[in-house]
């Protein structure tokens, strides 16, 4: 997966002395007996493009709504730019939100929708009109200023919603599934624009999405949420390459999981006995593990290569038979059955698959991978 950021973003979360723009402190939100958000603590820094990723019901929207001020935490505190906003109503918070349904005011035209928040803060007319013009230009909808929302296409409405939410120059922009209502083509194109606008304005964006590709593409960091808790917070690449939990590994992309136990721990690598694959797995890993500990090895399908011959006594090798082949255009996915019955998935780009001897059904093959390209999960 690609990240569209043109430069490597600074990593403010690495600098512990910098005061975060958003500090979420042990926040819990309960609806009756249901914990929508369960004791979450999280720091988000100025200028980040931060994604809350998870499947529906994981609490990501509730967390966003608490940042906006539409829900009050059952316990815990939220600080924005150093100020405790836990009990401050939405209309007094220095944040703005772009709604999933866009929530454009149907009785106002585009320009009035964008000017709405500026009028509320009593901005003088001349300045207000200049700001509206600036916003219309930013999202490239100048000719639509006098249209009513019902006269706009879905993509145009999305731009108006973005312009309206940005008009007040908020400290933080909250976006609830910003691209959810767009079709696939438009969505891909808009991802780039959203990132460009965010980089240009330097405003912190906090995005809620269930679409992992969208989160991977746009974010500086992703918080993966599951059942009201945060599974992992990391930049997209780290989250993909080094998932820390089984859930994280399974949620982002596809993964092969091997259950086993530690048989040998060296300085920078660990050897794991995996009975279901009838093989030994070598993983380069800095996390200290105790021999005998039960762990899971995560291996991405695209990291597996087809070997020509078995290397005696070497780890990270599997023998199996191809059972399924799925052709996806750019890549093909192969399902390989190991002698013990376990299935392993691997992918091969088609430029490679066609150049060599093509793999076919029921073919016996050898698979291998490097110790750098897999990770150990302990939970």
């Amino acid at each position, binding site marked *: 997966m690609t990240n569209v950021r043109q430069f490597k973003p600074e990593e403010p979360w690495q600098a512990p002395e910098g005061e975060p723009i958003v500090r979420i402190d042990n926040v819990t939100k309960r609806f009756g007996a249901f914990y929508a958000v369960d004791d979450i603590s999280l720091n988000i820094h100025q200028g980040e493009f931060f994604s809350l990723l998870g499947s529906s019901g994981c609490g990501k929207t509730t967390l966003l709504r608490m940042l*906006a*001020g*539409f829900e009050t935490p059952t316990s815990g505190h939220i600080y924005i730019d150093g100020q405790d906003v836990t009990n401050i*109503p*939405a*209309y*007094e918070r220095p*944040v*703005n*939100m772009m*709604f999933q*349904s866009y*929530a*454009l*005011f*149907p*009785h106002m*035209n585009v320009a009035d929708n964008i000017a*709405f*928040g500026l009028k*509320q*803060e009593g901005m003088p007319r001349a300045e207000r009109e200049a700001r509206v013009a600036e916003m219309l230009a930013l999202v490239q909808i100048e000719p639509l200023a*006098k249209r*009513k929302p019902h*006269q706009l296409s879905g993509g145009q409405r999305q731009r108006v919603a973005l312009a*309206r*939410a940005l008009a*007040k120059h908020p400290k933080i922009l909250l976006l609830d599934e910003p691209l959810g209502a767009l079709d696939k083509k438009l969505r891909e194109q808009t991802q780039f624009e959203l990132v460009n606008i965010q980089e240009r304005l330097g405003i912190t964006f906090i995005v809620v999405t269930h679409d992992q590709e969208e989160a991977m593409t746009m974010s500086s960091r992703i918080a993966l949420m599951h059942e009201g808790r945060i599974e992992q917070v990391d930049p997209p690449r780290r989250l993909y390459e080094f998932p820390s939990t089984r859930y994280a590994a399974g949620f982002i992309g596809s993964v092969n999981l091997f259950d086993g136990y530690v048989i040998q721990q060296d300085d920078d690598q660990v050897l794991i006995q995996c009975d279901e694959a009838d093989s030994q797995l070598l993983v380069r890993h800095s996390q200290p593990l105790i021999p005998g500990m039960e762990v899971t090895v995560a291996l991405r399908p695209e990291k597996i290569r087809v070997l020509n011959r078995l290397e005696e006594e070497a780890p990270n090798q599997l023998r199996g038979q191809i059972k399924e082949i799925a052709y996806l255009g750019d890549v093909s996915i192969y399902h390989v059955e190991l002698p013990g019955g376990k299935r392993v998935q691997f992918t091969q780009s088609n430029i490679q698959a066609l150049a060599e001897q093509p793999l076919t059904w029921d073919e016996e093959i050898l698979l291998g991978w490097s110790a750098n390209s897999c990770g150990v999960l302990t939970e």
Partner: protein
Amino acid sequence: MKLSSHLPPARNLIIAVPWFWLALFFLLPFLFVLKISLSEPVLAQPPYMDLIREIEDGFVTIVVNFSNYQMLLEDSLYLSALLGSLKIATLSTLFCLLIGYPMAYAIARSPAHWRLPLLMLIILPFWTSFLIRIYAWIGILKGNGLLNNLLMGLGLIDSPLEIMHTPIAVYIGVVYNYLPFVVLPLYATLIRLDLTLLEAAADLGCRPWKQFLLITLPLSMPGVLAGAMLVFIPVMGEFVIPDLLGGPNTLMLGKLMWTEFFSNKDWPLASSLAALLLLALIIPFVLLRHFERRAEEAAT
């Protein structure tokens, strides 16, 4: 281009039913009324002269008589009756909206399982005859009625309040009777209001009372207009409530029409009153619709 030629026949048939209904029970009777309004009153049965008269040898003349309309314009009684009706209709509509809007709003915002029972309470009075409900108000409002006895029993007043046979009694009766016609359409628009719009307004720095003024109220205008029309139009011609609750000096078109028609047996004059009332009601709404359409076209 004729629209109907592009429609499938089954659809035409369905549209034809209400048109037929309107033509048979609204347009046709109105044409009768119009005809009678242009005739002369006579002492006969029916008490008006036919417009079409055969003189002799198959010669036919049509005699159109505008004197009824002339009389309506010349005698100030009719103008003041029109103004009286306008005043009562306008003020009652206003009162109905002022009382009905908070009611509709409260029902629309109450928990879902409360809404149906509350709506039932609004509709419940319709299960009793209209006349019985108005007579009940006589029992409440009259000199030694429920209200006066209660207030005197509590020691709040020494002598009975004179409400019966005053305009106040008419307002009470009209507002009470027409309130559901305001609450129901308002409820229908308020329940459909997308509450995210209010969140969006709050998010942009709008306080709750301004959210109501800038978002809820403008978006509920269709309901306000529908409710206002459902009150204003029938109250303009209302006869029973002012007759039963109002005094002799409550001057309204409906009452006047009744007097002309039944007491004075002047059918032509009563008919011309009816025709004028219809015009007075239709013209503003046609104009309103026209300007609305203009505004819509200007926006596109």
